[in-house]
């Protein structure tokens, strides 16, 4: 990787600190939990000002013209901060949208709606788009309640549907992290066609989710290390107990394997590489956040202590855009050959 590219990544990471400082408290996140829409439009506009919503949009169209590596760096920091705003979803589809300017400016929030069954990365095809009307049901739309419009994948191409259009119903189910999944039911809802394919954006989001998981497990592990260094039992810091030391070493190893595979996928984002990264990130993030609870003992099981928030977020992220098992199978199908 060239020095310039490294500088761009460092700039992105630094800019993320404005919204998700690594040492920051999680008061804002707690305040938004289990409420509607579950995130903050003022923060969204701030993200827009930082150029994040146009990150992947060409410079000629008002974006930053950056790539998946930069989105991953950003997603990792937002994951570490448990940021509820659905930035990777919006940023990944922004390049597809005809009215990108308002989206890039943060004035208009458009989220993708593509899924019709659990645990898949393939857009559902039961939704139809004909005569300017869309009918069908889309599930598992994270933070759907905050969207102004949805980019809906149909068997007949992409369709842009306004949230408040006739024939549009949105049902919400709360998620463990305090956000929600929306189920979007469309009955002859008016829509405008959008050229292009959503699949590449779904790959990008998948990769960004792996990076999000990396960020959150990294911080949960850092919290655990702090606790191991300071919490005392039996007259000594619990981090001096060898059994916990060795467990921490194993967790560090999983963390760094995840970091390496996410970085490799961000640098060369093939579907196989993305599946590798998502498979590792899903399993490792659940492992690290579970163990973060265990290493904290009883206090880790309280809602008021932050470490549980990371577990809840991992539970939501792990299977989004495909479980570890799905991505392992996809990797094997995409890259069947092995060599020494």
């Amino acid at each position, binding site marked *: 990787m060239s020095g310039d590219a490294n500088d761009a990544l460092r700039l992105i990471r630094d800019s993320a600190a404005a919204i998700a400082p690594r040492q920051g408290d999680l008061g804002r996140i707690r305040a938004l939990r289990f409420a509607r829409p579950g995130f903050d439009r003022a923060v969204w506009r701030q993200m827009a000002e930082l150029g994040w919503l146009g990150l992947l949009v060409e410079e000629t169209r008002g974006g930053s013209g950056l790539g998946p590596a930069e989105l991953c760096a950003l997603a990792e920091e937002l994951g570490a901060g448990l940021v509820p705003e659905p930035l990777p979803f919006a940023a990944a589809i922004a390049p597809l949208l005809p009215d990108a300017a308002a989206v890039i400016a943060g004035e208009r929030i458009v989220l993708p709606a593509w899924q019709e069954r659990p*645990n898949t990365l393939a857009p559902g095809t039961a939704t139809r788009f004909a005569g300017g009307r869309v009918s069908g049901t889309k*599930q598992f739309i994270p933070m759907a309640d905050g969207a102004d419009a949805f980019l809906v994948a149909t068997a007949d191409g992409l369709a842009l549907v306004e949230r408040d259009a006739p024939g549009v119903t949105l049902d919400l189910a709360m998620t*463990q992290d305090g956000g929600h999944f929306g189920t979007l039911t469309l009955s002859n809802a008016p829509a405008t066609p959008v050229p292009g394919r959503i699949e590449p954006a779904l790959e990008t989001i998948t990769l960004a989710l792996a990076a999000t998981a990396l960020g959150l497990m990294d911080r949960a592990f850092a919290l655990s290390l702090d606790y191991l260094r300071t919490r005392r039992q039996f007259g000594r810091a619990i981090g001096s107990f060898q059994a916990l030391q060795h467990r921490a070493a194993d967790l560090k190893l999983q963390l760094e394997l995840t970091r390496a595979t996410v970085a490799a996928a961000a640098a060369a984002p093939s579907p196989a590489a993305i599946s590798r990264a998502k498979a590792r990130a899903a399993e490792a993030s659940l492992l690290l956040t579970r163990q973060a609870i265990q290493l904290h*003992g009883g206090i880790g*099981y*309280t*809602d008021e202590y932050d470490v*549980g928030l990371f577990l809840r977020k991992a539970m*939501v992220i792990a*299977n989004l855009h495909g479980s570890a098992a799905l991505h392992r199978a996809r990797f094997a199908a995409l890259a069947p050959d092995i060599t020494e």
Partner: protein
Amino acid sequence: MDAAALDALDDEAFRLEVRRFVEAHYPPALRNPPKRLHWAENQVWYRLLAEHGWLAPGWPRAYGGMGLSAAKQLIVIEEFERHGCARTNDHGVVMVGPLLIRYGSEAQKRFFLPKILSGEAIWCQGYSEPNAGSDLASLRTEAVIDGDDYVINGQKTWTTLATDANWIFLLVRTDKAAKKQEGISFLLVPMDSPGITVRPIINLELHDEFCEVFFDNVRVPRANLVGEENKGWTMAKALLGFERIFLGSPRQSAYALVRLKLLAERMGLAEDPTFQDRFTRLRLDLEDHKALYETFAARLRRGEPLGADVSMLKIHQSELFQRITEAMLEIAGENAGLLEPMEGNRALHPAGLFIQARPATIYGGSNEIQRNILAGSVLDLPAT
């Protein structure tokens, strides 16, 4: 059938009798509750047990218990578990009763035991402290004699259902100069004493099962001391005999495994060979756990004491329970992130059971502590 007649039955006949009793009387709405129930919800069952003389299987009949053998007590618990009975606010029956019967004064027995059986006295346990979790003996809540009273200052935590209780049994430090286990005493304290503050702790299930209890110059008569002063640690340890096997009961894992299978069917994975392989491994872990559990239960039945090796059961059961719920999470797709059960079906709640399983390796002596015990007391490895 009265307690003496029940005790005279052979084990299999007794088991059928227990099953008949629970099927006849247990409120169907309370089967397999997803969370620990509060007194307001479970007192109906407590009172039914009391009314039929089934509340205290282990107490001597002279004190209103059933006077059952260890073997039969185990059968009661197994059958209640099998039926999915909720735990009641049972600290009075399970902990305070046996404590008083063994160490209490006559006055204490006469005063407290009937109140436990009647449901008038509902107890919570004041053991853990913020800086005395796994290392319980380092507790710092202290009680100082002032005239005829003890004056208590300090803080307890992880006090289960303290908001329901009107009494607390406390371990307190009464001699700060003594070695850590040797200056600890047992006190019985009314929860409405001036100076007690209870603060519920919301846990990861978003449930207020646990509380912190603060003591600010709380006064209790010296008559509320149980047994000798500074002998509380010995008494507390003696109470942990028979009960330790229950932390290793296969119930939670068996319950979870059935739900894993249901979930797999719902997710269309029941015939998936990879899932089946994983499921069979978990199932064999459960079956073999039951076989190991049975060897400990057989020891109890023969009237033998349980050794430190009973820690194995707790370790294996809690980690198996967790592994089953991890399998649920992994096959649940996006449902793994839901706050509420899938499709409104309480049996399909992978996220809920996954979170519920988390503390199993922490409470009742963390699994790290249990492994220390195994290494030291069972395997005779040198102290670290």
